[in-house]
């Protein structure tokens, strides 16, 4: 979303920035000026708080069932006393699921799972992908060729199908889902890292370092890599969003988290036949996924604008 930069903003920045404000600090202050970035930060902050304080927020345990309680049946619709629900009925603000568990509690606990899946997947893919990309870009020649052809092969598959294949090979479950999603997203990071390294390695400060006698790894780690991280941070943030979506899709297909784990995708899958009789059981987990993913997408967009050097000319 590149748009002509607003000159006022950059002038203001220059005035407030002071002489040696770091790239990240000034990027952060620019991020706070972007509506999408702020919205993303607020949403993510909210979800993180929900995940941390889940035991305080959730009225029940995510696996506790209410079978046999008075006035309770499976798949009871939402009941909020404040909104005029009969005081006789037990309060379940998002209703009960097919096993008579409190859906609100399950959704609250599900945020822990989705966040950790999203972040750890990106952590793996980011580390492996950018290392491979840096090696390929810095050493070039046959190393580059071998690494990048392997990346092309991975990219040759539709991502979800390759990930399904990997999960089928490793066996269903949350950990393997995570690995599979990480593996199929490695090429993205490798490609971007390689491209950045290729452009940075010809810079004069790298040549200067080399002239001073620094070795290959040292130059790569202290001179090249720090100057290539900006695009990767943006891709990583957007990557968290797509990892959460993919993990939910795996849960939905029955390959990801296994019952009774409270995972949004598998919660949705378990009740999808009830769409006609108990739509609330499909509605809420989907909304939860959407809001979380939206948060990371907005933050990613905001970061891209904030870190794009063409916007602060």
């Amino acid at each position, binding site marked *: *979303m*590149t*748009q*002509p930069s607003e000159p006022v903003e950059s002038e203001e920045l220059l005035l407030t920035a002071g002489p040696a404000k770091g790239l990240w600090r000034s990027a952060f202050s620019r991020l706070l000026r972007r509506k*999408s970035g702020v919205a993303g930060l607020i949403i993510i902050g909210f979800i993180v708080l929900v995940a941390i304080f889940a035991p305080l927020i959730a009225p029940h345990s995510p696996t506790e069932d209410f079978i046999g309680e008075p006035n309770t049946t499976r798949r009871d619709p939402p009941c909020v006393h404040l909104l005029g629900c009969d005081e006789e009925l037990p309060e379940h603000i998002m209703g009960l699921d097919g096993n008579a568990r409190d859906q609100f509690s399950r959704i609250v606990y599900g945020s822990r799972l989705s966040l950790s899946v999203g972040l750890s997947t990106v952590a793996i893919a980011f580390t492996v992908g950018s290392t491979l990309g840096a090696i390929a870009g810095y050493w070039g020649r046959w190393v580059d060729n071998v690494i990048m*052809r*392997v990346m*092309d*092969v991975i990219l*040759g*598959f*539709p*991502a*979800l*199908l390759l990930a*399904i*294949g*990997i999960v*089928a*090979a490793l*066996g269903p479950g949350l950990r393997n889902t995570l690995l599979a999603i990480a593996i199929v997203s490695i090429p993205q990071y490798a490609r971007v890292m390689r491209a950045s390294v290729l452009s940075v390695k010809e810079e004069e400060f790298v040549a200067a370092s080399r002239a001073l006698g620094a070795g290959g790894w040292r130059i790569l780690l202290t001179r090249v890599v720090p100057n290539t991280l900006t695009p990767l941070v943006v891709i990583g943030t957007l990557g968290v*969003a797509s990892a959460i*979506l993919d993990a*939910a*899709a795996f849960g*939905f*297909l029955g390959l990801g988290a296994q019952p009774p784990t409270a995972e949004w*995708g598998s919660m*949705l*899958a378990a009740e*999808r036949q009830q*769409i*006609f009789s108990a*739509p609330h059981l*499909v*509605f809420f*987990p*989907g909304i939860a*996924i*959407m*809001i979380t*993913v*939206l948060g990371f*997408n*907005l933050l990613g*967009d905001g970061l891209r604008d904030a870190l794009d050097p063409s916007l602060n000319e």
Partner: protein
Amino acid sequence: MLRFIVRRLLLAIPVIFGILLVTFFLARAIPGDPCRSILGEKATEEACERFARNKGLDEPLPVQLGIYMRDIVTGDLGDSIRFSRPVSQMLVERLPMTIELATAALIIAVVVGVTLGVISAMRHNSAVDVGTMVVANVGVSMPVFWLGLMLIWLFAATLGWLPPSGRLTAGLSSEPFFEKWGWDFKEGSFPFLTVEFISNHFIFNSIITGDWEVLRDAIKHLILPAFALSTIPMAVIARITRSSLLEVMGRDYVRTARAKGSRERRVVIRHGLRNALLPVTTIIGLQLGALLSGAVLTETIFGLAGAGTMIFDAITARDFPVIQGFVVVIATLYVVINLIVDILYAYLDPRIRLE
């Protein structure tokens, strides 16, 4: 131009070869043997040995790989272990459904996406622009399977406007054009498979045979799944169109066009959009993978017997030949479509050819 195409084709060969290799080994790395997942958990050792011999699974891996590569080069995709039917026949039955779904989704995505992008860019920073971009952001954040279920709930369960699942209403069937026109083919022969493949595109088939009832019914069944599948590419296309058009509209030649006194509409379409569509073309090519992945989910929700559900079932049943055959077709399709995108790109932007 010819040299460019040939070079791109040659570059694709090692990639396709790698994809075939990975598929072969990945399919065999899936734990659990095909015998027990097909004959049942209690199959005896002898039964499984006989099964393996029949299906050629007792050969050493390199031999299996050799046979597999030889068969692919000769166009033989083998037989499904589970159904004992040629994989090519299964693809002929299932792939058209997915192609119809993906094409419909892509058309919706491009038409709506580009339109929204152009409107947003022209009314830059207005309420319309902000609104469209908010909707686009929500669009890429929605799980396809959830949107599908919500559409079923709203349009099928609550409003009753559209059917919730399936490809045609029960009792209705699409008569293949070659049968209607009295063409005769040997069952299972290559020409037969070809015409059957074409006629299994119900919408196309009913148009050429003039069967309007089937056409209307097929379209009605396609609307919800196609829309669900189109949202993510649509949002991506809208965003790219907007940002690329905004960038182009700041160029000198656009100012020149305006200075000449061209009407705004003409400036946007002739000078702006034509140049802004370059990145959009690439994105459309890249969305193909997302469409195929989405098809697995969409077909599952809408109960459609397409290639997406076929590959999913094959992976879970360890039906190697089906997995391999499917991947071969998809990988080739991928390479061909990306080639077309590259050629289109080189045609639209001559600088690329010369590099």
